[in-house]
């Protein structure tokens, strides 16, 4: 056990990940509605919030990166930050990862190798077309169904087992 801990330390040293904390960094919103961060005496603007686990854990291990894809640092957990900052970061993260949640499946029909979906989502009513096969409808995590339409828009059914029987029957054949 002790040996494992010891090895874990070595891994962390080798990785050299820099964690941003409320103590060593300050996040701000720019006038252009983007995110900037001051850390280590340097100002980075704009920065983008990347998720390590966009499907299984959106609030942990967020990577703060520049437009040039350089990592400024990582946030271990959003809850480490005060409410205001956390929601600011979360809002930017939500801009990067736009995946409306499907709240109700209204109709799914299939024709000529494509399925046509009509669903109510957190972003409003959406109609989209999905190409059959090639992994466009797949489980991104246990019980979480990710649907990618022909344009590259993404939709997610967060809990497939919460669908009504009727809804489940409609999507069952598309999986």
């Amino acid at each position: 056990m002790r040996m494992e801990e010891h090895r874990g330390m070595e891994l962390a040293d080798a990785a050299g990940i820099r964690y941003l904390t409320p103590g060593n960094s300050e996040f701000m919103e720019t006038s252009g509605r983007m995110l900037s961060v001051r850390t280590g005496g340097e100002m980075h603007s704009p920065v983008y919030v990347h998720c390590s686990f966009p499907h299984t854990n959106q609030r942990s291990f967020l990577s703060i990166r520049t437009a040039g894809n350089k990592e400024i640092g990582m946030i271990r957990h959003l809850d480490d930050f005060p409410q205001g900052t956390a929601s600011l970061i979360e809002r930017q993260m939500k801009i990067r990862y736009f995946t409306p949640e499907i709240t109700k499946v209204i109709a799914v029909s299939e024709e000529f190798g494509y399925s046509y979906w009509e669903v109510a989502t957190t972003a409003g009513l959406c109609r989209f077309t999905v190409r059959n096969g090639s992994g466009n409808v797949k489980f991104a995590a246990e019980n979480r169904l990710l649907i990618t339409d022909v344009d590259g828009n993404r939709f997610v059914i967060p809990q497939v087992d919460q669908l009504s029987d009727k809804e489940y029957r409609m999507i069952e054949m598309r999986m």
Partner: protein
Amino acid sequence: MNLNFTLSDQDLAAVRQIVGGEIAYCVPADLSLEGRRLEGYLAIGGGRWAYVQDGQVRDHGDIAEASDYKLMPFVGNAVLEATENETKRIIVRVTMQHAARYGYIAQILNDMAASRPVRIYHDEADPVCAACGRSLVPGTRVCPRCMSKAAAFKRLLLVSRSHWRSLMLGLGVLIAASALALAGPYFQKLLVNAALVPPAGQEASVRVFILALAGMLFTLAFGELLGIARNRIMASVSSGIAADLRKTVFDRIQSMSLGFLTSQRAGDLMNRVTADTDRIRHLIQEMCTTAIYQLIILIASATLLFSADWRLALIVLLPAPFVAYLHYYIWRHVLHKLFHKQWRISDKANSFLHDVLSGIRVVKAFGQEEREIRRFREYNGEFAAAAIKSEKLYSILSPISNYLIQIGQYLVLMIGCYMIIGREMNVGELIQFSAYAAMIFGPISWLMFMPRWIANAVISMHRVFSVIDEQPEVIDAKDAVGHRIRGSIEFSGVFFGYRSYEPVLKEINLTVKPGEMIGLVGHSGSGKSTTINLISRFYDVNEGEIRIDGIDIRMIRQEDLRSQIGVVLQETFLFSGTIAENIQYSKPGAKPEEVIEAAKIANAHDFIINLPDGYDTRLEENGNNLSGGERQRIAIARAVLNDPRILILDEATASLDIETEAAIQEALKRVTKNRTTIAIAHRLSTLRNADRLVVLDKGRIAEIGTHRELMEKRGIYYKLIAAQRSMSRKSGSSAVVSPQV
């Protein structure tokens, strides 16, 4: 691509107040920062932009006040950004449906901000169906909702024209076969009425009995014979048509520009050549055998039924569609789903098995056997459970649905017997009648399934025809000439982008003398490979000209041009076949001594001659039985065999170790003598023989000169050299960049 959407009157009025009179560009901006989809638009005109939604301008600005407009593609959405007052800002946010449009818009805004002429060269087709407005799938031109089945069938008929003789013969046989099939029940009636149960007052006739028996035997035997003939004819016709289609598709694919081909997945194209044409073959075969046969039987037996007894016919026919529909429903909605699910689970288990078995070394190395056994047990159990469930249901439902199909028969027998007792019908007529009634259910339930497989075949037809209809982007000019290349290359004012909103090369001016060796240097993505793609004319330039010996390459026949350019790429591709055949690929029919000479020049002769099979060595898939350096030298031999005047080396030695590279360098030194050579290399030592180096930076020529000149200039090249030197010092291999490069 539509960059000028029409605004509603309300929106238009609001926008006009900001941008003035004319709107030059207008595209949907359909996503709010809060993540709601809405009907907003970004309008551009009069040097200003405005974001309008619901008749109100929510945001606007002067285009010239900001710079560096850029589309940032995120996950599932994209954002148009710009730099204003030295800070970045978001202008609008869009869903992926309109993201490609914003690539153009960003380009347009940048050009406008810098007061440059707006450069948009070719308009890519808007991937939205013109008829219904739904988005089209990238790579297809036909909307699956709006495509007409009739039109597709018409095309197919046109393709089948050359086979019409055998097609007609097949149809003739088909009609004869159905006539025979329909004659069967008639002989049955004769048999029963003449010999077994003669109507009251008549004697049993032995003659008619024998005649009826002979007739039944004849219809049976001859019907089978006709069936064999029909299947043989139709198989050859449909295979012939499919072969024609395959050939046409393959020819088409070969004539496509590299741009089209790289935008398609190889597997997808392969599918079109094989699977789709096969589905069409199947359709023709099915249509000309089963479909027409079933239709004839349906119509004929219905007519015969009605002429025999219309009341009985009604009893049979009225429930038939319902019963057939029920049968169809049970199959489609219950059984099919069950089997689909079972199939999916089995698929999962299979891919798990494939994974674990092909990665068995990893499993063993990490000692995870127990875990994999456990996982397999789970999948296996799941599969068994699903199989049991569907088999159970199938064992119940399948007899039920079959029984439903035959319920009409039961009714006929019931009423028929009743009529016989009432002396309205005799036994022979009942037997004939029920035989016709039995015939009619087959076609009806078959018709229920027909739309689905026709639909599948129509998709295949469209996929095949869409390739046939595709126009090659790079085509020979009408008055293109054959030209014996001497070797000078001239770029003048060349602009090029794979997508016109992203120019990869900007204003390239360069003259290469015959026999000169040019080294192309630059960071990845700076446009080096694009430059050489343009010399081979895999793409046409957007603006400017490339001239070889003073002739615009668009005026030289493509085949002529490319056969005189030798290419060696980093990833060599060797076909299966012998080494000699592979070297001969650039010049089919080359003599053995030529092959050996080419191999000698490429420093390949010595290792080939040491192989047990020499030049006859059969290469396995992509030459996997040779080392990387050996494959590369064969590729060089292949490139020089044809004695090309222009030689292109695209990272030809990048994947090799230093020693092998030295051997190949030596070969190249001989090869490039007296040939115009354009070489790309990341390892700058590779370019030590170059006469001049051209440094590309972000699509522009940043520096030109000899190694010495560029080192003295202390620009980009100097930094690259310095970076590589420090890298090689760190890694301890000093040979990577030699000081006398």
